[in-house]
């Protein structure tokens, strides 16, 4: 049994699947991370991913271009981000309640719009999704080539956005303002920067990332949109942000760990399907994630002003 698992770990197919599974997770996690670094918890993520999955897919199904679909999904995501921010940033309402509300609203609205536009569809209609693009040269490397360099362009985008988000947060004035807004908004204000604008911008950009993560599922991993397909990925992303201590690099690591466990359990099911009920394998990534969270979250240093609304002119 243990030997079989090691054998799985050595196959290129396993690693390719891991990278495929990690793509929407890393996009969603980066999105959540950007919001939280600015001090705003965005529990709308599950709904915003669903909305992104529907919007991008629908764009293409109605005859649009694939990349146009991604831009459209991002735009819709940003719109929902603005919605979230107007309640949590400008009105200072509970970020938990607003986020859950957005998730319920965005999920239902996605199915509603889908049904409205395609009332007669019985089997989920399909589009032609992003195709794998083998990077010349690099894709010929054994194992790594197939795992890393024979993916769809959206996966490359997801992986490249990790260093990009890191760079913006750590190396640009804007990123500094975002991080400071999540640590001490009064400090941002007293340097003459509009805290509310910084936070709103961060939530909108973060939500756009989430929506692209959702679109990956209907436009790259699958080719159709159906009920419940985000399947809790958004919540996993929220947990991964904590696992990552709010750092993009660690977020990738955490997402890879989860995706790897997920890819492994599918293959392990086939090995031991007879002896162990398959539900245990389905459970495994979540159980191990919880265990990893327990270990990692103890050392997490969260943004000091996370969940704390900022109101101008308030007596402090």
């Amino acid at each position: 049994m243990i030997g079989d698992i090691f054998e799985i770990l050595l196959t290129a197919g396993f690693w390719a699947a891991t990278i495929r599974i990690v793509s929407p997770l890393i996009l969603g996690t980066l999105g959540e991370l950007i919001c939280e670094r600015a001090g705003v918890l965005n529990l709308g993520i599950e709904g915003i991913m669903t909305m992104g999955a529907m919007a991008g897919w629908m764009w293409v199904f109605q005859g649009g271009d694939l990349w146009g679909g991604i831009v459209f999904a991002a735009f819709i995501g940003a719109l929902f981000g603005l919605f979230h921010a107007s309640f949590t940033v400008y009105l200072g309402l509970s970020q938990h309640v607003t986020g859950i509300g957005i998730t319920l609203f965005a999920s239902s609205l996605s199915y509603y719009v889908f049904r409205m536009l395609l009332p007669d569809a019985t089997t989920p209609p399909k589009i032609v999704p992003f195709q794998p693009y083998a990077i010349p040269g690099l894709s010929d490397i054994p194992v790594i080539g197939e795992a890393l360099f024979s993916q769809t362009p959206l996966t490359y985008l997801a992986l490249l956005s990790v260093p990009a988000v890191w760079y913006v947060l750590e190396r640009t004035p804007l990123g500094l303002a975002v991080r400071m807004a999540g640590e001490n908004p009064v400090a941002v204000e007293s340097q003459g920067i509009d805290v509310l604008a910084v936070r709103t911008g961060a939530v909108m950009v973060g939500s756009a990332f989430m929506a692209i993560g959702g679109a990956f599922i209907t436009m790259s991993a699958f080719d159709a949109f159906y009920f419940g397909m985000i399947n809790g990925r958004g919540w996993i992303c929220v947990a991964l942000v904590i696992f990552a201590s709010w750092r993009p690099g660690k977020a990738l690591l955490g997402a890879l760990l989860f995706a790897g466990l997920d890819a492994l359990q599918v293959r392990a099911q086939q090995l031991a399907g007879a002896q162990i009920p398959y539900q245990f394998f389905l459970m495994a990534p979540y159980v191990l994630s919880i265990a990893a969270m327990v270990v990692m979250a103890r050392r997490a240093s969260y943004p000091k002003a996370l969940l704390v609304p900022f109101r101008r002119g308030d007596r402090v």
Partner: protein
Amino acid sequence: MTEKSVSVMPLLSFRGITKRFGPLVANDAISLDLNQGEVLALLGENGAGKTTLMNILFGHYVAEEGEILVDGAPLPPGSTDAAIQAGIGMVHQHFTLAENLTVLENITLGTEPLFAWRRDIKAARTKIADMAAEYGLHADPDKLVGALSVGERQRVEILKALYRDARILILDEPTAVLTPQESDSLFETLKKLTAKGLAVIFISHKLNEILNHTNRVVVLRRGAVAGTVTTSEADRAGLARMMVGEEVNRPKVTSMMPGNAVLRLTHVDCQSDSEAQSLKDVSLEIRAHEIIGLAGVAGNGQRTLANLLSGLTTADAGDVEILGAPGVADPTELVRRGVGRIPEDRHATGVVGEMPLWENLISEDRRGAEIARAGFVIDKRRALERSKRLIEEFDIRCEGPEAETRLLSGGNMQKLILARVLSRGPEFILANQPVRGLDEGAIAYVQSRLLQARADGAGVLLISEDLDELFALSDRIAVMYHGRMTPPQDTAGLTVGDVGLLMSGHEAESAHAH
């Protein structure tokens, strides 16, 4: 540019600034000038409107009336950015730093266009090093602010203002959090800054500092300017009178005949988290009409004793008798019995800052007949009435009973706690550091109230680090050192020097001499 033309036009002028919070007038038509190269003290009690005025200057608040001129040009109201552009730098009382970010990141925030491709970290490093050399303000740019001491953080705040080329530096109660040594080094820095032409507004209620380190004093009282004097012509008593509005007299103690015992500790042991804080063989009797002062350096068991007497813990050995019954780990029961508690940290354990005044005022009496219907439904109308009465009686300056408690100044918060405790007519009062951090007027008020309670028949345990206070109020004084307590001795027969020796552990000779 001659010297004369500089002195004719003030660098900064307030013209008739008025700011209200609800019915509270925080600033009432304030006008004042600041000249180049001077240190102007803004003196006033807590709640006199000093910080509000500075927050208006820095664009945090917008004044209802009046205007601010910098170099004769009006400053756009409500814009921090405009204030910074005009050369105003502010060091807030509560630092506006992010602990998880580095010194350099804290200093450079907002100094570059937001949408630049990269931060110029190298240039920032050079500039910070130059400023450090010029003004003697040293700070490691790569350290996290969270790892710095309070004094170092303040240095970062000053650097932050200088980095943006501030010509006017506002320091809001800068020495409140500093050790004496750190304060001295701050005053050295201020000298260097004013020598280079900066003007400083120094907010404080400490008269010594103001007399020694400023050029001019503007005194605020209840939101209005009570007077302006040149520091060299000012004296302590005059400033205090201007600040409080009347002669400040610390209350006098009249001798009284002690009554029955309200508290009796007999050979009490009580474990705590550290050896020094654990009580060892403590015996003490406090009677009605009596104040027992407890001296000692913080961390020598005072906290454990306070926890024991307020019902947060119980003794491991020995007898505890509070108001005629054994001590219990049940604060509600002790309060019901007639114990009044003035806790050491009013923000953390004295009040719930997010709740309105009235809820904090009735929190120990919420099931009393006056407040609660049938013993468990709070009658808000009656609670508000009672709160209004207490706010008036104890002179708590606030927007009203519905205001959030955290917005009160320290002195007013302490008055709220006094109102809650004393309105119940307690027979035993545990007063733990009751005047810590308060200004002159509030100190006199709190002390006179404690003496009034003593006259009304309460026994008081006064825990304090301030020997002057202990000697002024106490009938007898005991000293704690490493969890042991000396027997209380009559204040009349003690000197400050005696108590100081006991506080540092020289117990044997003195304690056994009696």
